[in-house]
């Protein structure tokens, strides 16, 4: 990096990702950011927990496993997704056929992850809103346009259907989002606006 780089809170990449210098990202080679993603300070992203190449493939001597020069992906994050301060993204893990391995965590477009939320889900759909202090348990699946309220505890393995609001501990479906949710500029559709103001001085 040239020494005269502009000193700002955020590093902006070629694809428009705004990543705080104080974010705590591990295993960057296993993370895919879709572009225009915001990652705030002290957010922890565990890309180092990726799926190890399976050892079972080596049992067949005639068909050796292909050289693994393509790194397996631990975390995929979509466009205009916003990871707030102190949030934690860690891929889920489970035991399958006697092998304990980590599974990829997929996050869609226009997703908001609130402050100090802990995400261990298998996938978050598009336009998902996760409130501050919420936890999403291991291998949970949150479908498009779902809302997880502040402080909710989504249990491991729960599947939250589209357009649902879940809250409480443990999280239950408490309502549905109204019509027009997620429309650009309306409630739930502010992702572009959120992205635009990041890194701008206050008052603009």
């Amino acid at each position, binding site marked *: 990096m040239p020494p005269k780089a502009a000193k700002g809170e955020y590093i902006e990449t070629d694809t428009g990702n705004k990543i705080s210098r104080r974010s705590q990202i591990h295993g960057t080679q296993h993370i895919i950011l879709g572009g225009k993603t915001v990652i705030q300070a002290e957010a922890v992203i565990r890309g180092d927990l990726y799926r190890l190449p399976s050892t079972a493939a080596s049992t067949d001597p005639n068909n050796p496993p292909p050289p693994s020069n393509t790194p397996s992906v631990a975390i995929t994050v979509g466009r205009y997704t916003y990871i707030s301060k102190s949030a934690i993204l860690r891929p889920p*893990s489970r035991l399958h056929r006697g092998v304990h391995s980590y599974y990829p965590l997929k996050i869609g477009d226009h997703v908001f992850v609130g402050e100090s939320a802990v995400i261990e889900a298998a996938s978050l759909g598009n336009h998902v809103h996760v409130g501050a202090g919420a936890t999403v348990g291991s291998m949970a699946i949150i479908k498009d346009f779902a809302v997880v309220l502040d402080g909710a505890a989504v249990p491991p393995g729960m599947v939250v259907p589209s357009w649902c609001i879940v809250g409480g501990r443990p999280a239950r479906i408490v309502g549905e989002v109204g019509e027009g949710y997620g429309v650009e500029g309306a409630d739930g559709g502010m992702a572009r606006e959120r992205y635009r103001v990041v890194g701008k001085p206050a008052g603009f």
Partner: protein
Amino acid sequence: MATLKPPSSRPVPTGPPKAPLKADPTATIADTAVFQGTYPVTIGAGTIIHPRARFYAYQGPIVVGDGCIISEKAIIGAQPARSTESKEIATRLSYFVTVGPSSTIHPGAHIHSSVTIEALATIHQYAEIGSHSKICSGCEVPENGKVDEWVVVYGSGLGQRRKRAREANEPGPAVVIAAQVAQVPVPGPAPKGKVIEDARLMVLQKEREVLARMIVPAGAKKK
């Protein structure tokens, strides 16, 4: 480079004191884990410390037993700011304890073996958690609070408590009806809680083995 000293305008860095760390050689401690304080921190065999976990041994020693998993951003101990008493307060984590991401364990807490503490939970001072118990995400155990063995603490605030199922449960009515509809034999009673707990601990063992290979240990040079 002529000098590697810090610029003289800045005072000599008086960073926080680094806690004397006594770790078993089979423990895996990530390079970005933080150990601060004046009292010793002891880490048992096979324990996994995730990156960004923080240990503050300002008020007393911290002892972590064998086979524990301390997740990222977990805080064990407390910053020195609010230490008014000079008494030494030991924090103890027994064997096979799992501490979830961003959870906090205050000094003086005693966590018995095979306890699971989920994400964002808080264990206050002098609390005692009995073995095989579980503190669900976001829950708090109050100061001097005591949680019995085989208890699940869940819900918001102080939370509700219930005993973990230890005896075999007969299949529920929905399962019986589903089995009749599908014309398959009704499944037998669920395994006893002890069996499930043993299985969970075996899975935990596998998880530790995998993590020991993945986490960048302290002292290792980065590529």
